[in-house]
């Protein structure tokens, strides 16, 4: 294939070549034969008039000269090099045209002849109207687009109401509001604010005591009359905000109270659980692969813990990104860091990979595409994936840039191998320290030594067996299959098609005789030997047959191995060269679980076809055998003693095998992490024309997005380039990374971003509502050492974040952030709160949460049962709920848990009837309501206090007068035996009501 620049030069060369060849006879040939053919069979998809598929036009000479996405369609004079001819020949399934029906052989020949003639074509582009191709911005144009320009430092604007801003964020926000002649909303009441702060930072509701403390401290700070316990007065304000009361002379004192709470919560381990969960959405985190054959990611929890821990420890965001892209390559201070960093690279590995894809090179590029999509949307806010098949149609991302990045990832190993029927990821053993490491090391040393002993013993046994074979069962004698080394498939275990009779006519056989076709039914009989191999690898395949003069001389034998099919012929009149018994068919690679077999057929044979057995010898066994076969046979006494030795060795091998199994099962299993590492072969890759894996174009040097970098990438020849990619992503000079993340943090705090298309900062994304503020935050983020906690702190301490909900005239979408958004609680917060209220919530942090998550054999047909049969019964926080791709917790499905298959940093919040049905009828909700009711009734308080407590735990406030009246009525006249039911209904109602679901 050609790269783009080559096509252009070639195109120019061709024009002159063609113009030299103008000949009236040729033209006639074209008009008579070619034009009608093209018009009938090609124009529908390849003409300006109808469609221009794949960018190719065949309605003019220039059309096929320039060609489409795959390059020039015709090379005049050279049919074999012309893509048009290749396509109509229909030999390559992915490159066959016309798609609906093959041209006739005559038609193909006519086209070939035309190309051979030099492809005379009188049609010029001028005669046909051109169809415009959609093209994206050039790199130069792109560098002028807002998101690719480095953030600029701009002083916060001046504002009229100088008392309102609590910091620079507020100046940017207020300036825009004042521009429109408007005012920001009043402050949220303390009761509203405390709930907002808790859910935003920890995903959990404040306890009644925490609400009280906060309200008391705010009141004290603002000299409000309300003191002590949260009273009705404050509470009423929660429902009907009274705007001016808390705006302040003493607003800085109030700010201090908020600050204290925020600082306290930023230190809570639940901060990392909640903010880590946000990142897990970006990282399309899941604990199984989904897709075709879903496979459990048994170690994915380690990545989840890594993320939670990183947010809790406030690992600088640039380092956080570096670790996830190239943790395995970065220096580590100690083995704990090494473990963390290896674990971080699961970011690249835990996509929704369709491991079952049979074309493993296709799979490899699908994985790379998914990784680029995730890095693009997650870190850069770019839809890089659009450039897999062609230059990006809107953004300044040429296809070349895609393959520059792809080269880095194709130099990275994400799949364990490229041969397994069902592929799998890499489980990287983790090194520990101190006593623990010693324990593992000792165990592993024991295993290794036992394994070595076992292998030696096996080799010895193979030698002994080989000798025995030669001695006791030379030509003319029978031998049991088990006596022979290697894997032997006897004819009785083979699949015979057609009549094969059993014979013992010639005494040289394995097991109980051999098969013969009786020299009948030629072409209708086959016998297939399918081995069960202990491991993948190269094997020598040997075929046993008893020879004879009446045998066929040309017996076809097919070997289907991992790399294809081989057909050999065996002359059964000759004595087999190996021990008079076997002939070698060659060495081939077989997969342990692959579909390898050896098939003997009697097609086109003359004479008897016989088949006795097939032997598969691992390469190392062959060497041992050859050595063993040399010594001459001894006398009877030696033979007997040899047989004794052999039996003893046989027993010993069996014993060792069993202790090996025991030791493996008993010993501590070294922890492993999902991870990637550099590929053995490192290098640049080629553009894949139209994204087709097999259609290679020009090679491109590994690199990054040109539009978002100043200097060309310098990538070491010794590594994949992930280290450099990580550096480029996490560089302060990258115009996207910091912007994209601060925008996410804003979105997760406010409920909508400054750029609302959080995954798309390209030309088709939305423009920022506050471009200067976004730049300010991005620069500040970098200045403050990429500290996420400092960023979040600054956002939630802003005055803008602490306003009441409401509406702003002329701004229905609240793009000015003049008031707080009313936000639906996340699925996790809904579940966690219900569990907290019922008393069931288990607040243990970190660690695995799926039982039976042992080693997964991808090719085991029951591998997915852990997921399919999983019962969601645990009561830990939702961030630990098993995140299967094919089976979600019902509550998550109902309440818009992000699509677990791709980067969705911003959760949608739908309102659908299944949510209502879930809250009305699901056993989970009913169970929580009942448990909460039983808890309430067990306390000695009266119903009034119970009701107050129910409100305080579910809605973090007291009931209003109206609500009190409604519930009192529901409790009036309730008989003793209905009290649990009545209280269950009250709790369920609170779970289902509006104020539970929304955060003011």
């Amino acid at each position: 294939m050609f790269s783009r620049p080559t096509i252009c030069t070639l195109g120019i060369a061709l024009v002159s070549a063609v113009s030299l060849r103008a000949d009236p006879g040729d033209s006639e040939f074209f008009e008579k034969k070619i034009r009608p053919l093209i018009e009938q069979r090609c124009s529908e998809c390849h003409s300006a008039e109808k469609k221009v598929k794949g960018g190719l036009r065949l309605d003019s000479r220039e059309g096929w000269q320039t060609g489409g996405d795959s390059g020039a369609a015709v090379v005049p004079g050279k049919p074999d090099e012309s893509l048009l001819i290749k396509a109509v020949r229909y030999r390559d399934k992915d490159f066959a045209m016309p798609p609906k029906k093959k041209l006739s052989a005559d038609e193909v020949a006519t086209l070939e002849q035309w190309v051979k003639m030099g492809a005379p074509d009188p049609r010029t582009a001028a005669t046909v109207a051109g169809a415009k191709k959609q093209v994206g911005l050039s790199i130069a144009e792109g560098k002028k687009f807002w998101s690719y320009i480095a953030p600029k430092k701009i002083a916060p604007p001046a504002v009229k109401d100088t008392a309102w801003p609590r910091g620079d964020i507020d100046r940017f926000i207020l300036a825009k509001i004042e521009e429109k002649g408007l005012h920001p909303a009043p402050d949220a009441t303390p009761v509203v604010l405390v709930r907002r702060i808790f859910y935003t930072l920890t995903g959990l509701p404040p306890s009644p005591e925490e609400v009280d403390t906060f309200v008391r401290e705010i009141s004290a700070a603002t000299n409000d009359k309300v003191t002590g316990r949260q009273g009705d007065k404050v509470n009423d304000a929660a429902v009907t905000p009274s705007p001016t009361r808390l705006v302040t002379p003493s607003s800085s004192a109030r700010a201090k109270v908020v600050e204290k709470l925020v600082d306290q919560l930023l230190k809570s381990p639940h901060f990392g659980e909640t903010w880590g969960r946000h990142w897990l959405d970006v990282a399309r985190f899941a604990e199984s692969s989904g897709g075709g054959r879903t496979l459990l990611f048994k170690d994915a929890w380690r990545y989840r813990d890594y993320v939670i821990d990183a947010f809790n420890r406030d690992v600088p965001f640039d380092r956080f990104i570096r670790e996830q892209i190239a943790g395995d390559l970065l220096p580590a201070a100690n083995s704990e860091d090494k473990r963390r960093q290896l674990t971080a690279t699961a970011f690249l590995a835990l996509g929704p990979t369709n491991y079952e894809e049979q074309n493993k090179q296709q799979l490899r590029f699908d994985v790379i595409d998914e990784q680029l999509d995730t890095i693009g949307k997650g870190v850069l806010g770019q839809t890089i994936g659009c450039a897999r098949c062609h230059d990006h149609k809107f953004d300044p991302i040429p296809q070349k840039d895609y393959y520059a990045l792809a080269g880095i990832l194709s130099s990275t190993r994400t799949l364990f191998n490229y041969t397994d029927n069902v592929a799998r990821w890499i489980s990287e053993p983790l090194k520990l320290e101190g006593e623990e490491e010693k324990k593992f090391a000792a165990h592993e040393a024991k295993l290794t030594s036992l394994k070595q002993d076992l292998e030696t013993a096996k080799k010895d046994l193979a030698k002994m067996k080989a000798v025995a074979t030669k001695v006791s069962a030379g030509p003319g004698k029978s031998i049991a299959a088990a006596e022979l080394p290697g894997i032997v498939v006897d004819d009785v275990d083979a699949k015979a098609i057609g009549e094969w009779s059993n014979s013992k006519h010639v005494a040289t056989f394995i097991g109980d005789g051999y098969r013969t076709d009786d020299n009948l039914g030629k072409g209708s009989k086959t016998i297939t030997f399918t081995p069960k191999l202990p491991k993948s690898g190269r094997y020598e395949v040997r075929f046993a047959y008893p020879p004879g003069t009446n045998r066929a001389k040309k017996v076809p034998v097919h070997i289907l191995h991992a790399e294809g099919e081989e057909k050999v012929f065996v002359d059964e009149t000759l004595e087999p060269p190996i021990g008079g018994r076997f002939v070698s068919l060659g060495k081939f690679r077989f997969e342990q679980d692959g579909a390898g077999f050896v098939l003997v057929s009697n097609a086109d044979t003359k004479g008897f076809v016989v088949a006795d057995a097939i032997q598969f010898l691992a390469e190392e066994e062959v060497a041992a055998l050859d050595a063993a076969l040399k010594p001459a046979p001894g006398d009877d006494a030696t033979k007997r003693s040899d047989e004794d030795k052999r039996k003893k060795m046989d027993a010993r091998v069996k014993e060792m095998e069993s202790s090996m199994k025991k030791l493996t099962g008993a010993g501590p299993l070294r922890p492993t992490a999902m991870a990637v590492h550099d590929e053995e072969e490192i290098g640049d890759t080629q553009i894949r024309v139209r994204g087709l894996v097999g259609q290679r174009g020009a090679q491109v040097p590994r690199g990054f997005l040109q539009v978002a970098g100043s200097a060309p990438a310098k990538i070491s020849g010794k590594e994949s380039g992930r280290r450099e990619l990580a550096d480029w992503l996490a560089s302060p000079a990258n115009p996207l990374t910091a912007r994209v993340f601060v925008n996410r943090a804003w979105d997760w705090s406010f409920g909508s971003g400054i750029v609302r298309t959080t995954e798309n900062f390209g030309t088709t994304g939305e423009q920022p509502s506050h471009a200067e503020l976004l730049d300010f935050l991005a620069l500040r983020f970098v200045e403050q050492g990429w500290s996420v906690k400092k960023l979040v702190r600054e956002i939630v301490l802003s005055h803008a974040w602490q306003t009441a909900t409401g509406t702003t005239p002329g701004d229905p979408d609240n793009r000015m952030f003049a008031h707080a958004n009313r936000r639906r609680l996340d699925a996790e917060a809904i579940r966690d709160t219900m569990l907290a209220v019922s008393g069931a919530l288990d607040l243990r942090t970190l660690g695995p949460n799926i039982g039976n998550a042992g080693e997964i054999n991808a090719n085991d047909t029951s591998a997915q049962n852990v997921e399919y049969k999983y019962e969601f019964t645990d009561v830990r926080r939702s961030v630990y709920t098993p995140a299967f791709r094919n089976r979600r917790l019902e509550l998550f499905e109902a309440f818009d848990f992000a699509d677990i298959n791709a980067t969705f940093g911003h959760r949608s919040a739908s309102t659908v009837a299944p949510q209502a049905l879930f809250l009305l009828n699901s056993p989970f909700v009913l169970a929580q309501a009942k448990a909460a009711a039983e808890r309430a009734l067990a306390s000695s308080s009266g119903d009034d206090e119970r009701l107050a407590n129910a409100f305080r735990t579910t809605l973090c406030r007291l009931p209003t007068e109206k609500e009190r009246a409604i519930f009192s009525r529901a409790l009036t006249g309730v008989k003793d035996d209905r009290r649990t039911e009545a209280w269950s209904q009250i709790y369920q109602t609170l779970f289902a009501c509006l104020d539970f679901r929304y955060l003011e």
Partner: protein
Amino acid sequence: MDTPLFSRRSALQQLACGFGYMALAGLAAQQQARAAINPLAPRKPHHPPKAKRIIFLFMAGGVSHVDSFDYKPRLIKDDGKMMDFDDARTIAKTGKGATQRVMKPLWEFKQRGQSGRWVSELFPEMAKHSDELCVMNSMHTEGVAHGPATLFLHTGTTNFIRPSMGSWVNYGLGTQNENLPGFVSIAPSLGNGGPRNYGNAFLPAVYQGTALGRTGQPAKDTNFRNIIPARSMDEAKKQFDLLREVNAAQLAAKPGDTELEAVINSYELAWRMQGHAPDVVDISKESPETLALYGIGEKDTDNFGRECLMARRLCEQGVRYVQVNYSDNSNNPAWDQHSNMPKHADHARAVDKPVAGLLTDLKKRGLLEDTIVWWGGEFGRTPYAQTNGTGRDHNPNGFSIWLAGGGVKPGFAYGATDEFGHFAVEDKVHMHDLHATLLHLMGLDHEKLTFRHDGRDYRLTDVYGHVVKDIIA
């Protein structure tokens, strides 16, 4: 004027409301608001449709076309011969073909009906409907393994995350019954893509398929999730009234928020659904003749018969897209006879009569005219024995499906495979083409049915797909 198709953003902001949406009860602007807000409001198609709904009978695992609807005498003639074939799986893995043993059909083929179409004895009941069927003999698709091919069948891609066909139809046309979901998948499997096969991906959640039961669960126990009140009706009513009152009180404190109103409304709808939906799946009022037609009450056919009957009932109630899954949760689902081809007969027994019954019933009720029935799997099977055994491997390169009703030519066969039934060669129909054609029959232009996501317009057929006009009546 057509109601414009909703963008994701506006749909999300304007509160998507589930299953169906009864617009803001009690508000004066009800009708107006309904058209503006309800993403499920019936929408005008791009062109006059031939059909109003689709019933897709999914035969998971891949039915052998050469044993059922694609008659190849050559297989009988060359039965047992070793020949070279470009086996799809071997090619995917090694880039080369392999020698294989030709295997003749295990069921006898006969010409049927007026049309004289060849159908084997594997499906004697369906065979009686030959004059209704439009058999597509030249299907081909992507994906050699079940996972990729099943996802391709449902979402038009083997590996990307894309909406399923039913979601696209729902998005394109809206719903006809606000008390029921517009897209129902009966007894879906968790395997081979699982929920992705009826998922909405990046389309708004309102367009997702609703699972009715799950594979392995007896159809007689099937119902929509959480549809049956967990309390006695008396207590359920008390609880609901309490919730109504509390929500009204809370809403009064925050007037004018349409999203909160939508939540209240979703409860009203859920309450009504509790009353309606169980009736749809309740087949107890069907006549004994109808039950018998579907084979309900007979051991082999009871389960699939019930599911087919439910499909008809859902369609009658205005559900646009119903998929009935004949599947299981395994990696080698139902029809996947890699060894032991004769096992096809067990599956055929389970589906043959119910499917034929469904056709008869739809026709009798005048529903077949504007209902497309689509029968088929994710791919076909090879004309040769797998590893020289007794079964057939997957064949994505050539296979058959059939359509009936809704504007397709009856008693018609389209396209052809080669003389072995291995590769589609004549009038080839790619799965993308089938998608395009089905959408076309529903009044939707597959090139215009797009959704803007991540800055790009997506469609079911990606950049492919041709409408197969020749099969349209």
